[in-house]
């Protein structure tokens, strides 16, 4: 009787196991079994820049990069793609790692910090690129879920549970229903779009495609490096009607209390660890900034800036930059598009101090009328 029951139970369960194992292995949403992110991290750890790495999970990359670090860098950068161009030369140290991820949310920054914390050694300085959407509860940004375990560990003040044993974890993941749910989507994409990634480790800093540099920052290919002013203006205008990043500012009605509290807890913990902390606000393209100033839907950008400046002052945190490009006299020559300053623009922001004079609002408001 027991034998019959067990046979039937196994017959029933086997298809589930086979289905999960197959989908998880070949779909491999977190690239556990065929990790381009892991391979990129390995190349970076070996001192190579990596070209041809589009559409990767940047959060997973950060996880691998941190896991493979031989020593903890003195200076790390947290933030979004707006600060991803910041290089070790900008910080005047080789002990540097940029952990910027596209569309970074507060949860991303917390999770990456937590990954360091779990190593037991924290950096001496954190440069934090502060984007205005981090207090937008409607940003819809869920990419941080890749590092959810690290974020949860921070929120619950518990030790991180993942990564204790990678091999055992891989085995678990092969039969993990949650991994199945992600992997079935990636398997579908692989089968339909025939996506294939061929990584190129290189010592060159600028290549034909986006290059991930050993210090964690990125460099764009020649197509982006040689943009004309008109092309930048065109891109900035496109951002106004809905780029990936401006979408994060949609439905931004108020500075979420939940996120403010979380941010305060995060910053307080950094300060309590005696880490030198600097906030950096990266300016927007003049056209886009004017558009946001004159459009009520984006009024929270300026409100957020005021809030964060007050917060930095209250906590005695050094703050550099402003969302307002006029503070640094930045025009299209200093941008790649509406949201991203180029290397020249970034250098000015990081070196320069805000203009002591109030910005000439009227100039941009007039421009907005012609947009």
């Amino acid at each position, binding site marked *: *009787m*027991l034998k*019959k*029951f*067990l046979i039937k*139970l196994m017959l*029933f369960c086997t*298809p*589930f196991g086979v*289905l*999960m194992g197959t989908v998880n292995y070949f779909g491999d949403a977190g690239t556990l079994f065929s990790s381009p992110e892991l391979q990129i991290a390995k190349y970076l750890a070996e001192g190579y820049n990596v070209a041809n790495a589009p559409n990767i999970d940047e959060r997973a990359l950060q996880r691998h990069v941190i896991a493979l670090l031989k020593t903890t860098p003195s200076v790390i950068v947290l933030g979004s793609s707006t600060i991803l161009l910041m290089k070790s030369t900008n910080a005047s140290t080789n002990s540097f790692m940029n952990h910027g991820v596209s569309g970074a949310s507060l949860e991303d920054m917390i999770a990456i910090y937590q990954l360091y914390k779990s190593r037991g050694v924290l950096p001496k300085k954190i440069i934090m690129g502060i984007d205005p959407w981090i207090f937008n*509860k*409607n940003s819809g940004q869920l990419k941080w879920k890749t590092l*959810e375990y690290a974020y949860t560990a921070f929120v619950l003040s518990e030790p991180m549970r993942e990564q204790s044993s990678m091999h055992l974890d891989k085995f*678990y993941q092969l*039969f*993990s*229903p*949650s991994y*199945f*749910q992600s992997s*079935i989507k990636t398997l579908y994409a692989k089968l339909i779009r025939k996506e294939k990634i061929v990584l190129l480790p290189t010592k060159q800093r600028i290549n034909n495609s986006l290059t991930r540099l050993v210090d964690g920052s990125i460099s764009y290919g020649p197509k982006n490096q040689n943009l004309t002013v008109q092309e930048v203006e065109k891109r900035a205008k496109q951002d106004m009607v809905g780029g990936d990043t401006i979408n994060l500012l949609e*439905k931004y009605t*108020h500075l*979420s*209390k*939940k996120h403010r509290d979380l941010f305060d807890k995060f910053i307080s913990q950094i300060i309590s660890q005696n880490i030198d902390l600097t906030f950096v606000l990266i300016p927007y393209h003049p056209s886009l900034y004017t558009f946001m100033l004159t459009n009520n839907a984006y009024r929270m950008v300026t409100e957020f800036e005021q809030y964060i400046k007050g917060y930095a002052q209250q906590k005695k945190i050094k703050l550099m930059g402003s969302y307002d490009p006029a503070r640094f006299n930045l025009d299209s020559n200093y941008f790649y598009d509406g949201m991203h300053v180029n290397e020249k623009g970034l250098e000015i922001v990081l070196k320069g101090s805000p203009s002591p004079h109030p910005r000439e609002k009227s100039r941009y408001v007039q421009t907005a009328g012609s947009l």
Partner: protein
Amino acid sequence: MLFNSFEFAVFFPLITLLYFLSPHKLRWMLLLGASCIFYMAFIPVYILILAVTIVIDYIAGIKIENAEKIQKKKLYLIVSIVSTCLVLFIFKYFNFFNNNFASIANFFHWNYPIEMVNIILPIGLSFHTFQSLSYVIEVYRGNQKAERHFGIYSLYVMFYPQLVAGPIERPQNLLHQFREEYFFEYQRAADGMKLMAWGLFKKVVIADRLAIVVNHVYSAPTEYAGLTLIVATIFFAFQIYCDFSGYSDIAIGAAQVMGFSLMDNFKRPYHAASISEFWKRWHISLSTWFRDYVYIPLGGNRVSKWKWQMNLFLTFLISGLWHGANWTYVLWGALNGFYLIFALWTQDLRNNLATRLRLTNYPVLRKGWAILVTFSLVCFAWIFFRARTLDDAWYMATHLLSGLGNLGDFSYVKESISDLGLSKEELFIAIASLCLLEFVHLIQRHANMRHLLSEKPVWYRWSVYYAIGLSMLFFGVFGKNQFIYFQF
């Protein structure tokens, strides 16, 4: 160890297999060892607290039985109750009362030197405390012989399927089962597995998905109003039901596979047509515990009307405090007590009104209305249960109807729903799974779902099993979310 974890998926079949392969005389040891492993998977050292309670009540049971004079029996009972409750008080209520006393002292500018203690509540403490208490009380009442076998008694308190969140068993029902020899029965094991699968479905597909919305809204309720708060509260009603009844189903099913019979804990509570009926269908093992050991000893309804109502209110107030050391739970209990008393006050009025409106001619309509009102009252009370603070609860209670005048405006409805923190697809899955749940409940009004299924041909049954399995695989939320009642 969580029922919805990979560890349990290995642990349960292994223990069950060993159980049936072991000789009868060794089985209690196997189950006790398994229960220790199960409990120690949370915080290992806390098993010592459990051991203290077990030793106290084991000795107390024997002493009560051996004592010849009633005064001595009573003394042993009091010692047992006080020491068992003291453990519960220290771990669960000390900080709560201390904090309140400190606030009062602060208000009067008095010096208050007692510090808070930094301890974590042992998992399921309230459950096994109550199960232990029911043992000593029943021995005192003479309804149960004192258990002389320390291992069997320990197993009664620690039996792993119901150790951390019930059902809270009575010694008359459970203790003797550990002495009986159960052989493997195919149908019983299959039924137990089906119940476990259904419980797991309720937990991972329904409760944990609804939890996303509930956590989203309840973590910052002041950012929402009206429809969003209402939907989140209704979702919480179903979340807590599916979470807890799911746990109970898995517990009862797991015990059933091995041959043990645990008491039912839920009987479609949201189909109740009154609050008193709701409490006969919701967390039955706890409701009957309070009835037998608090309400009836207080005098029950065999006292003056005023005292009877006081007894009702007091019982629910204690029930609220049992759930958690927070004023929100106390208020939740008080609100439920008030509902019952208010129902008594207005019973004649409501009957007269129904007669005048000729609702008595439409019993289905009347019952439907009663179910709807009961559900609404229960949901309103859940606000106090789930809210983090009294301020949050008060805000929610006073802003439930804000903006509802815009219900005819599609954009308002759309915006309110988009505030819930679920994508359209996820929301669809949540609502579809709730519809499935209610469909099953409607069938269960007339028949046992498992018996109905067993009468169907093999291909039909297996299709249903695979459909449930695949729906869990595709639509389940697998974040190792704890069961809500673990915290109590």
